[in-house]
């Protein structure tokens, strides 16, 4: 495991870009450097309902964050907390998987070892080198951007 101080220093370096991205896109993002966690709030574009996105950043960047949507009332990561998948630009698949999970190499929870569906992505430590036509993100702001892009194509919520 990466020492917490190492991850904390990395996140300190990313904090300004995360804040700037959030301000440009109307997201509320709170980065907790002490707990190595992130919480974000955004409205779903079709029904204006509140989405709550959490990230466990422990181990970042040796391993990717663990991203999950949670229900704002129950705090549980269940289908209704997730955007439903809609085909993105060019007819590509959404990252919003009905498991439910965010299916991208930069989400630790997408890997089989963490309960996800992707046994083909080998180890979480290889997250920056996963092959194929997948949405890429190498830092937290890029991950938020990818989620925002796919959210713009989501027709509603799961569940």
């Amino acid at each position, binding site marked *: 495991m990466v020492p917490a101080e190492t991850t904390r220093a990395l996140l300190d370096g990313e904090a300004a*870009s995360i804040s700037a991205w959030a301000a440009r896109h109307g997201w509320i993002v709170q980065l907790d450097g002490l707990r190595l966690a992130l919480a974000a709030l955004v409205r779903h574009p079709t029904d204006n309902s509140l989405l709550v996105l959490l990230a466990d950043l422990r181990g970042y960047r040796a391993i990717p964050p663990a991203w999950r949507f949670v229900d704002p009332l129950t705090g549980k990561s269940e289908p209704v907390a997730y955007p439903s998948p809609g085909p993105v630009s060019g007819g590509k698949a959404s990252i*919003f998987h009905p498991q439910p999970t*965010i299916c991208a190499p930069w989400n630790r929870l997408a890997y089989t070892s963490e309960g996800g569906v992707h046994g083909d992505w080998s180890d979480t430590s290889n997250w920056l080198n996963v092959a194929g036509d*997948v*949405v*890429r993100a190498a830092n937290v702001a890029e991950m938020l951007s990818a989620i925002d*892009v796919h959210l713009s194509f989501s027709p509603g919520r799961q569940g």
Partner: protein
Amino acid sequence: MPEQDNDHKHDRHVRVEVFVPSQVDGKSFTWLGDMLVSAAAAEAAAEFGIQGWTPSFQNDAKKVLDRNQSLLAQGVDSGDSLELVDAGGGV
């Protein structure tokens, strides 16, 4: 005359501010309006040192621009701010 109008349209340049998620400050670009979104986005990605993306732009209305159309056809105008995004898919 219509032909002159068309010529004028093809010569039109757009000056935009492009941002990327990982950086605070944007950069200005000037492109021909009939340049494909994919080509402009690739140029911007190279300028920002971004590799491996299927680059496109997201405009202020959150619309991800069609990479196969021109900037003008996708409604890009001078003074716009665009976010460079990866238009890659999920799996």
